[in-house]
């Protein structure tokens, strides 16, 4: 039995899901309020409610999506971090300074991973002395091109933390090395990601400790615990302790994975999660959710944290209706709940109530509100309601179109991709969230595409959390002229012969991915590890072939371990 808990902004949802050969079945669910300043309480309460309905001895796994790291950053409850960077030539790194204790150390590594200039030991010692004077206990060490050669990051790590192993030491409590965050190139993002990882590390680990203690008390000490990531996958709790930044913004991912679990998506599709205040739009290509290319922004900082591509627009059931010029508009502001639920401003939900598309709260109050508003603007009440609903559907349509166009105009790098490249052409819509059923027809009229509202959509996010699989990715970089193979996220380095080629690299990438997941207790079918990028460039010296520059990216894509069983 799998448990899923999604700690949302208003509610914490939990489900227990049983999986057998027919698929998954939700056997228990609950909703409790989220206490922002005591998330453990919300999780505990939700868990207790579920455990009352099921046999706790059957529980094998708990997947948790939490806003803890997000909130800590948004509310500024983060720890001082010492950030040490080795930048070399390029854009002045001071442009990317995330905090006070930021130190640029002379030294440089080039794009192929050659050390051009050694790290200045003297500057490094001075920087650390300065951090220590300020009482800094956690450090982010980041080098430009460290994903090609982590030498400078390793030197900085050793200096910051005066011991070699990961044991607690006198000099530092935690160090994040940039290259361990992933193999992608982007120095400023690596700095920001390493910084945030350190900034929430202590808080996250205290939370993880408390969570493990609580599970032991409930007799669930042996249950596998995974934390949701924004990319639509999970990571084991042990892993999340050193990569807490990966747990950020996992809410929309839980919803999207929920839809994946509740339906069978094969085609290019659009998922609309219509909530109270916002609508989240996600796009699927050939049945797989699309990923944000570079990573999400945290505040104003772009990071390398992977995420599903989800666009949020200010339009939901609680969005206020207004008249701008001749047009009836809805959103983007939420000015309180619908009139039918005791609010004062006319909302989209009230208009849907008026039309009879749904019955939320006091429908008579909605009817009066629509009539009052229409009279004040000298128009027939039914026209007002119709135009408001039509506006909402059109807005969702236009924003979706814009997102799809943006996806289709993303840069590509080969002739093949450009001329035969895949365009996303949505063929189907999936709607979820409170107003989903009520908006189904108006949305269909805009898109003219098959539109489905799956059953169980009320608990979709928690179901998504429960069934989400572990994702992992790694990038392999090999340079046969330098005889080196490097997998940054694993800090794995190996010597390779001159004859090492792309096929060998593909194989190594898959093997390393499977082995890494195995060491984390995750069993993976080798066919789930997909090569998503593979290129090999001949390097020429004079007019002679000097070696190959090989890049391979391998990942376990987001997915669910089971989809919901069809109701008999």
């Amino acid at each position, binding site marked *: 039995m799998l448990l899923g808990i999604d700690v949302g902004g208003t509610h914490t949802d939990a489900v227990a899901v049983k999986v057998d050969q027919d698929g998954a079945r939700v056997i228990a669910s609950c909703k409790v309020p989220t206490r922002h300043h005591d998330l453990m309480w919300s999780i505990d309460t939700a868990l207790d409610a579920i455990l009352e309905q099921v046999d706790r001895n059957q529980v094998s796994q708990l997947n948790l999506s939490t806003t803890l790291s997000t909130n800590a950053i948004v509310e500024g409850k983060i720890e001082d971090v010492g950030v040490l960077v080795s930048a070399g030539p390029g*854009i002045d790194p001071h442009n990317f300074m995330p905090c006070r204790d930021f130190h640029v150390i002379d030294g440089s590594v080039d*794009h192929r991973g050659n050390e051009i200039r050694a790290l200045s030991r003297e500057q490094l010692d001075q920087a650390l002395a300065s951090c220590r004077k300020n009482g800094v206990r956690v450090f982010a060490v980041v080098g430009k091109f460290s994903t090609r050669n982590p030498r400078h990051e390793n030197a900085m790590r050793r200096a910051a933390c005066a011991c070699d192993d990961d044991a607690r030491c006198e000099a530092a409590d935690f160090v994040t090395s940039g290259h361990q965050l992933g193999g992608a190139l*982007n120095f400023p*993002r690596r700095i920001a990601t390493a910084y945030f990882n350190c900034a929430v590390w202590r808080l996250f680990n205290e939370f993880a400790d408390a969570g493990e203690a609580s599970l032991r008390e409930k007799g669930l000490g042996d249950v596998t615990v995974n934390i949701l990531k924004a990319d639509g996958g999970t990571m084991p709790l042990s892993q999340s302790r050193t990569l807490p930044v990966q747990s950020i913004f996992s809410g929309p991912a839980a919803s999207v994975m929920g839809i994946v679990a509740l339906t069978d998506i094969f085609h290019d599709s659009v998922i609309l999660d219509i909530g109270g205040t916002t609508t989240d739009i996600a796009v699927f290509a050939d049945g797989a959710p699309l990923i944000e290319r570079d990573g999400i922004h945290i505040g104003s900082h772009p990071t390398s944290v992977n995420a599903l591509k989800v666009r949020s627009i200010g339009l939901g059931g609680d969005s206020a209706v207004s008249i701008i010029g001749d047009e009836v508009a809805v959103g983007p502001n939420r000015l309180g709940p619908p009139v039918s639920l005791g609010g004062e401003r006319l909302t989209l939900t009230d208009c849907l109530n008026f039309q009879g598309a749904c019955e939320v709260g006091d429908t008579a109050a909605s009817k009066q509100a629509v009539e009052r508003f229409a009279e004040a603007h000298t128009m027939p009440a039914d026209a007002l309601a119709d135009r408001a609903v039509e506006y909402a559907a059109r807005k969702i349509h236009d924003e979706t179109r814009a997102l799809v166009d943006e996806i289709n105009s993303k840069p590509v*790098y080969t002739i093949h991709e450009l*001329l035969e490249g895949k365009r996303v052409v949505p063929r189907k819509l999936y709607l979820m969230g409170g107003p989903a059923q009520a908006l189904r027809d108006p949305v269909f009229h805009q898109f003219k595409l098959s539109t489905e509202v799956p059953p169980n959509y009320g608990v979709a996010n928690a179901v998504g959390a429960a069934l989400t699989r572990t994702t992992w990715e790694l990038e392999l970089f090999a340079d046969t002229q330098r005889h080196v193979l490097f997998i940054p996220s694993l800090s794995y380095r190996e010597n390779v012969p001159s004859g090492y080629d792309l096929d060998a690299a593909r194989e190594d990438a898959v093997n390393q991915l499977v082995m890494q997941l195995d060491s984390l207790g995750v069993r993976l079918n080798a066919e789930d590890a997909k090569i998503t990028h593979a*290129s090999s*460039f*001949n390097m020429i010296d004079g007019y002679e*072939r000097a070696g190959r520059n090989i890049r391979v990216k391998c990942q376990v894509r987001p997915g669910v371990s089971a989809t919901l069983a069809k109701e008999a």
Partner: protein
Amino acid sequence: MLKAETSLGIIFFPAFDWAISPTHPEREERLLYTQDQLREEGIFDIEGIGEYKPDVASVEDVERVHFCFPDVDAVATRSHMISAGGAMKAAELVMSGERRRAFAMTRPPGHHAMKVVHGSRGFCNINIEAVMIESIREKYGHKRIAIVDTDCHHGDGTQDIYWHDPDTLFISLHQDGRTLYPGTGFPQDMGGPTALGRTLNIPLPPNTSDEGFLMAVERVVLPILKDFKPDLVINSAGQDNHFTDPITNMNFSAQGYAAMNEMLAPDIAVLEGGYSIQGALPYVNLGICLAMAGLDYSHVREPNYEPERIRQDQRTTDYINKLCDVLPELYFNPPPFQGGDRDGQGVISGDVFTRRKNIYYDTDGISENQQETLHLCDQCRGVYKVETSSSSNPLSLGVEIPWNACPHCRELGHRLVEEAQLKGGGYRYIQLINRKDREYLRYGF
């Protein structure tokens, strides 16, 4: 967070699946490290800088500019069409106002491709700047355009295409043709009789460093640009003047390139050559991107940059100084057209200008003989005609009716094509570029 002072669109198309041959300098690896550097610097996260994918040039986009024999498909691969399409995308971003400036980093390059194309010269098949410029003029009207070609090699193809165009100013800075391919580009080449002074060549001696380049830009290029008042300034941005470039002998640096770009302030830059793919391109292209966006580039430096070691000597400085004294005169007060068939300037007889050329396509090993004719007209640009034969194509004909053709010249252009068809057997292929009516016709295929 960094924010660009001038918004910039970057079209990056490294054509990672195309090369002339595996070890040719113009190969897949060429923009690999530039891509790595730009990505690692996080340049696309800077507010105001955006990355775009290229358009694909159509056959008509190419036929608006070139006479391709036997046809466009025979001389241009898909990669060439995308490279030209990348330049067109850069132009579209600027013309539509989506970005103030744009830099097309595409390959293969194009500035050695001439008006007539039988194959590849200097790794170039179609002239991507010219295809771009004429697509701008087709869509946005007949703009006055200045091209500053800062590739180390003389931009002989671009010069050839605009030789008779008084509305296009072509300035080429390059390593002296007596010491480098293609061996042309001397000050006496100033343009045809109807466009004298609209072509300006600035041959610089080997080992010219930042000082010499920037002096030539300051003292020759900038005053001429100021006078010409172009609607658009385009930089044919070849990065092969770099001190590490394997096929040239100049000593320009990334700092120098960035500073030069800041001075020229081009609306659009289009990458041309540059074959030091590890030691120069990542740094030069980064410096240019930052300069175009109005951002600080002072920290951009090559790993082995030692300004003292590559500094030009006094003799070089003195020589360039003298050039800077005399060259602007060729634009401001061009000497009257002298003509002469022996020196390749052509002759005027009656109202017809005639010039003979022998062209060698070094990349493809093709030899071409051509005779071009311009019917001089005081109402319009005049009808252009070229008869060409090469080791890969029999005698063929190209006729161009200019965009502002007077009724008489329009009629003349059509008549030349009709007569050539009626004569029969004379020409294997005939192409008509009719800019006036936007009609691009081919016969004999």
